[in-house]
């Protein structure tokens, strides 16, 4: 972690030229790995929906495709219902749900075809049988969480994605199969406390970078750290994660009306890093960084990166970042390759391994200053990558067109 200084300037013992060359080689190799992973994921197999239709249309002996709908037929060849696949944006990417509806307009079956969510979130959705809640409901029902469908606490985005996918499929079947009108999907812009807090934190970080007084800068920084930890961490569980980066690179961009926070966070970080060449997030309001810093303040833990291990530790951290993103891109599973213990801490939910990682990091945080940020977090290398890329482009521009700069 580079403490808010220029993102390109890593604390290396190597001479500047050698470090620069090494950083650029790393950027090229990482870039090529990610492009390769992206292409692999793009051409990898897609879900074949047709064989799965009888699972949501019980009694269907055969299935034909008519006008984009799957029509289930009984033994005599009469239609017994329709099926369609809908898609809704979850936390890490689109969730596809296959919905079966009988000829009277009642949902008779649902099946999750594909999802990209973090296992921790999606386990809650399946354990609480969310897809089952839609079964036996007429197509004219609202089919909304918190309305006629029970919301899933702790996995709101994933549950919203499932509900949205079901409504999309229902709308298609109602219009094309049943000739019934279903109210259109509302597209309201979602602005609330997290979005406003985020903008204020960006503004505070921007001002903080420019403050000359060390004391005021420290105070402001503690203010942003605590606000970030409480609001973005414990209240909303919305920190930046490597899953969000992989989602961005996969092209699974969510609808901005309902995911404005996602755009503000990702866009804000990229914008400030490119324009200002500063990391606006890690040092200023990362909720997990703030939590580790609070532990360090209590225990008096100091920064520790021994000279002989510095290079190795930097490469390990970069390797973890590239591996997480490349794996997510190649398998098109952004949610499955995130490993940060943020959700485990702020939502108190996670697998045994996630809890073990969190406890290890918490114990280490009492001895070393921000150990997760300094040795493991994949986000610092990602933000460095953007900043170094910006510096490289700027330098090339200056060399090539000196008169224009």
């Amino acid at each position, binding site marked *: 972690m580079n403490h808010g200084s220029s993102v390109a300037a890593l604390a290396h013992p190597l001479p500047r030229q050698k470090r620069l060359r090494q950083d650029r080689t790393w950027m090229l190799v990482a870039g090529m790995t990610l492009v390769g992973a992206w292409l692999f994921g793009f051409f990898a197999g897609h879900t074949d929906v047709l064989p799965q239709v009888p*699972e949501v249309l*019980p009694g269907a002996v055969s299935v034909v495709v008519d006008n984009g709908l799957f029509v289930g037929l009984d033994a005599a060849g009469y239609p017994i219902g329709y099926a369609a696949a809908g898609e809704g944006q979850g936390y890490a990417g689109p969730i596809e749900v296959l919905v079966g509806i009988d000829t009277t307009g009642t949902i008779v079956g649902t099946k999750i075809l594909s*999802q990209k969510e973090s296992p921790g979130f999606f*386990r809650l959705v399946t354990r609480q049988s969310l897809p089952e809640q839609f079964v036996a409901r007429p197509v004219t029902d609202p089919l909304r969480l918190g309305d006629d469908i029970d919301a899933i606490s702790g996995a709101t985005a994933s549950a919203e994605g499932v509900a949205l996918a079901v409504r999309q499929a229902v709308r298609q079947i109602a219009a094309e199969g049943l000739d019934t009108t279903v109210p259109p999907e509302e597209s309201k812009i979602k602005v609330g406390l997290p979005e406003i807090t985020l903008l204020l934190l960006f503004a505070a970080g921007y001002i903080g970078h420019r403050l000359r007084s060390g004391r005021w800068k420290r105070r402001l920084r503690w203010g942003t750290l605590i606000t970030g930890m409480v609001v973005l961490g414990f209240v909303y569980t919305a920190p930046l994660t490597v899953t969000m980066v992989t989602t961005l690179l996969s092209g699974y961009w969510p609808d901005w009306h309902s995911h404005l926070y996602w755009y503000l966070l990702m866009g804000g970080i990229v914008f400030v890093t490119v324009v200002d060449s500063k990391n606006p997030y890690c040092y200023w309001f990362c909720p997990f960084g703030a939590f580790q810093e609070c532990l360090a303040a209590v225990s008096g833990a100091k920064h520790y990166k021994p000279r002989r*291990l510095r290079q190795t530790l930097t490469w390990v951290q970069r390797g973890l970042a590239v591996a997480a993103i490349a*794996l997510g891109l190649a398998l098109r599973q952004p949610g*499955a*390759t995130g490993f940060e213990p943020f959700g485990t801490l702020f939502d108190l939910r996670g697998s045994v391994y996630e809890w073990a990682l969190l406890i290890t990091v918490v114990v280490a945080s009492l001895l070393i200053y921000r*150990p997760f940020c300094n040795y*493991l977090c994949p986000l610092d290398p990602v933000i460095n990558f953007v900043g170094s890329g910006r510096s490289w482009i700027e330098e090339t521009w200056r060399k090539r067109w000196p008169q224009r700069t």
Partner: protein
Amino acid sequence: MEKEMASEDLKARLLTAFVIICIALIGLIWADGLLFQQDAAAAPGYYRQAPEVDGSVYLTLTAEAVEFRQRITGTPTPQEHGAGQGQGSGVGTGTGSLDHDD
């Protein structure tokens, strides 16, 4: 000096151990996540089973029920009655309106 070096060495070893443990846990988190995705993809759908009436089961159950009733009450089953004849008549009145509710 030597003591300081030993302490520094121990700290570096502890740090290395911390990083290795964390990497092992991260590997397990990835494996767990990817296995979950595989299982989730293979999970069956939810559906409402259409009611299917098996006629023979219905009749058997009815026959059993009748037999049981006869055994405990001594009432003969309808088949045991002799054929009967009957005559009847009836008268009815009614009112109507032009309102209808469709």
